């Protein structure tokens, strides 16, 4: 079985490491001593939204959590532990929740909500993916998408999803604790959308302790 695609990555890693050392000989040995990123990026797993590439960032710049449809569930230990570590230990100053256009996860939820409306007796199969997306499916079902074309509906789901996840982050313990304590480091929470067709990020919402 061909492992060509993984070998390509390994070859590219070797070339990249050599080019970095040529420019900055002690980059890696310095990097190994510690990290102090100022930003936590919570984004989608989608391969077209690699946070470091689209923001031209270097190793050490961005602390990252990526999952399907850039979710932040208040009962999810994985995302909560990233946020807790980022705010309390690493000391990030900004948490950016980044959704994107043409999101496959959002589209799947739109379809699941439409199927549920058409077949009121049918239920979703119980898989990790459907359980993971069930809050977003419920959110889609609460939206009024009548009169929207398919792409307008998807954009509305993507944008309202971003705002919903930002609300969740602002209710989480690490953020509420940081905002309640005037001696804590200042943390701002941003909701961004990345437009795949333009390659640009737009800010939808921004919240801090005063908001």
């Amino acid at each position, binding site marked *: *079985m061909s492992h060509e695609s993984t070998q390509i990555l390994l070859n590219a890693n070797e070339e990249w*490491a050599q080019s*970095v050392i040529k420019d900055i000989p002690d980059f890696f040995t310095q990097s*190994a001593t510690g990290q102090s990123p100022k930003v936590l990026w919570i984004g989608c797993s989608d*391969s077209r939204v690699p946070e470091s590439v689209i923001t031209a960032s270097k190793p050490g710049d961005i602390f990252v959590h990526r999952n399907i449809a850039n979710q932040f569930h208040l009962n999810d230990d*994985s995302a909560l532990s*990233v946020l807790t570590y980022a705010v309390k230990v690493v000391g990030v100053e900004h948490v950016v929740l980044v959704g994107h256009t043409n999101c496959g996860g959002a589209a799947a939820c739109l379809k699941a909500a439409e199927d549920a409306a058409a077949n009121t007796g049918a239920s979703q199969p119980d898989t*990790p*993916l459907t*359980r993971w997306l069930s809050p977003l499916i419920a959110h889609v079902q609460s939206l009024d998408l009548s009169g929207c074309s398919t792409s307008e509906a998807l954009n509305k789901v993507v944008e309202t999803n971003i705002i919903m996840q930002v609300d969740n982050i602002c209710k989480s313990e690490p953020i509420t604790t940081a905002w309640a304590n005037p001696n804590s480091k200042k943390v701002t929470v941003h909701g961004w959308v990345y437009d795949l067709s333009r390659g640009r990020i737009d800010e939808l919402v921004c919240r801090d302790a005063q908001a």
Partner: protein
Amino acid sequence: VLWIGCSDSRVRASGVTASMPGDIFTHQNIIANQFHSFDDNANSVPSFAVSEAVGVDHVVPVGHSICGGVQAAAGAEPNNLIERWSIPLTELIRTLDLSGLDESEALEVATEASINKQVENICSSEPIVTAWAAGRRVSVHGWLYDLATGRIRKLVVRSLPYICSVFDAFKKYFVSVHPTSPLLLTNICFSLFKKLYVHLNKYH
């Protein structure tokens, strides 16, 4: 390719492999890129990535040297959220024989053991077991990224199990020899094989 890595800012999937948008599907979490059987966040990612919507052929859990998560798990008693998340890793480290090793050697052994364990967890997960039962050629690779050199080292690779590729070959043979017959008995056999394989290999 699906990359399952650590949230550490120094280990950016696209950066260290000089990849472009569209090359790598990514899941990143805290504490040594763990893949827990009970974690829907992590499990939903290969479920989506291996499906026809994305169709990755390779799932790559990537650990890294000097991982703060592994260091923390080595000494933790679970009294907060981050330490609870690392319970499986802490238990794994307790099974290792680290006597006679200095701190950095012990950390390296623990990191490699963790990566091997995550590969096993991924190979037992519903998306991978189901894909293999259906004859999908998806491989799971365990890699270690060395922060001090910027290089990735391959530790282990697991591919489609032989028994699944044999059944898949039989299925293709029967379809090629009898393209128009209903193949009812053959379909029942393959369906039973799939169910049995998933039942025996998926973690419960």
